[in-house]
């Protein structure tokens, strides 16, 4: 995607993600992209969202992208404390949304965060399926994002199904519950309306061609004859994101190597100050 001086790639993607939200549901996040998309959505696109400070707790807060302070937001902003049981009850009753960032996603929207290679003889053992099986068996909207669309991330078939995609296995046991809805990558927006519930192009980001997408994907993605261009963020969208993340935690997700490490340390050292500047402590101990 070519750069545009009005917005950075992260701002473009976060806005695109924000525009997927709707309704009165809890929104949780484990990443800065997730947190900022929820924040922007609540401000501009889906005012009824009940946004959480952490993956698990602190409802009705303004999330702050952070490395170490998620739970502290609940206290600083007097978020409504929740329990894990309440989170899963919200999942089971379809009152929950989250942007999931899988290591692999495949043609049918199966996703993997557990292992590269065979589960029993891993090439790379990652983290384990966490709550993705629960999400993908219960929610009516499942949101995925991948920041580097490539043949390593968008694959013919995932090495391990942490998240249930479309196909016969789902049809036999889960039906529509928890089926993948949307994938946002650095190249475009995709859904699973292709033949037999396979991945299809919904829109491509400005300047991205279908050829580029096909080349960077591990399989041929279904595409309509006329492909829309993803709508870019407005000035207001961009401003909201920048104001909400002055330390630019979001940039870390797109970086690696020494630059990432240096910036990581710098953010970690400065974020307490940012928290106190934004929300002078009001919590129960304050």
């Amino acid at each position: 995607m070519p750069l545009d001086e009005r917005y950075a790639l992260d701002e473009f993607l976060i806005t695109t993600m924000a525009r997927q939200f709707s309704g009165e549901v809890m929104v949780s996040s484990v990443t800065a992209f997730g947190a900022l998309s929820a924040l922007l959505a609540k401000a501009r696109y889906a005012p009824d969202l009940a946004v959480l400070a952490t993956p698990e707790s602190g409802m009705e807060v303004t999330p702050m992208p952070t490395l170490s302070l998620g739970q502290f937001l609940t206290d600083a902003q007097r978020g409504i404390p929740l329990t894990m049981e309440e989170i899963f009850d919200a999942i089971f009753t379809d009152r929950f949304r989250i942007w999931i960032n899988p290591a692999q996603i495949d043609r049918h929207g199966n996703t993997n965060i557990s292992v590269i290679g065979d589960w029993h003889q891993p090439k790379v053992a990652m983290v384990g399926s966490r709550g993705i099986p629960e999400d993908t068996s219960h929610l009516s909207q499942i949101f995925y994002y991948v920041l580097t669309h490539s043949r390593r991330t968008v694959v013919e078939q995932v090495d391990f199904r942490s998240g249930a995609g479309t196909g016969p296995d789902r049809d036999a046991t889960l039906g529509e519950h928890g089926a993948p809805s949307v994938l946002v990558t650095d190249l475009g927006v995709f859904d699973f309306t292709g033949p037999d519930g396979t991945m299809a192009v919904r829109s491509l980001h400005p300047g991205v061609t279908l050829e580029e997408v096909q080349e960077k994907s591990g399989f041929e993605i279904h595409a309509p004859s006329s492909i829309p261009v993803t709508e870019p963020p407005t000035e207001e969208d961009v401003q909201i994101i920048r104001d909400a993340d002055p330390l630019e935690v979001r940039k870390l997700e797109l970086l690696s190597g020494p630059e990432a490490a240096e910036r990581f340390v710098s953010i970690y050292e400065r974020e307490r100050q940012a928290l106190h500047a934004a929300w002078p402590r009001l919590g129960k101990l304050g």
Partner: protein
Amino acid sequence: MTVDQVVADIPNGSTVAIGGSSLSRKPMALIRALARSSVKDLRLIVDVGGPDVDLLIGTGSVSEVIYAFVGFEVLGLAPHFRRARQQQALRFEEWTEYTVMAGLDATIKRVPFLPTHAGLATDVLSVNTSFRRFKDPFHGEELVAVPALKPDVALIHVNYADAKGNGVILGDGHVDVLCAKAARRTYMSCERIISSDELQRYGRDVQILRVHTTGVVELPWGAHPTGCAPDYRADLRHLQDYLRYSANDDAWRAYADQYIYTDQSRYLERQGGVEALLARLKV
């Protein structure tokens, strides 16, 4: 009670459920005490594991891990967990976040299993042979039977406790209540022991009830290097060091000598002392 008394109550082969979540409120001082004891062949149960599981694997204390997740969140993968998985050195059983909760809850409710749709149409069901598919007795709907998880011991760390064993959790509760209720014996460390009168001012933040606990140990900074909201955040700098020390055996021995084979007060000194920790980590 003391850390040593807790450890003495945990024989080889015990099944140990650990509270907290990845980098949050892990009972790390108790974990380090366990790691430096001679206990072996622990079966760990964690919902969302992090340095707790990784450290105990690193010291060779573990024979099996039941987990939904083990990782260092923003810092990346858990080094000893990853290596052990890749070398197939121990037995691993991958569960999911809710099914670990349901397995503990089944034990609490004294039922052999609880039903769920979670896991259907995923490979968790293929690799985890403890689960069983079955048909519900009313309509024949296909479900997953999650077996009861039966910890011998639970280890948790909380903000405050009274000497009788009631505990206050001010930040996210994670699965600590489930661990405490499901285990036959629950040991709780806390930042500070307070009087029962003071504790009862915390209302619904008193989440751990003494009828479910066996013993309490006062261990300030007992979650370090993980965080303990709202008292202190995770020490990501120490955890970065941990990752570097985990790169090879020699480095890991050095880490163990310096930070594991020592008591909590020397451990804190080696972090630069309490004043330095406060300056770095107090929010």
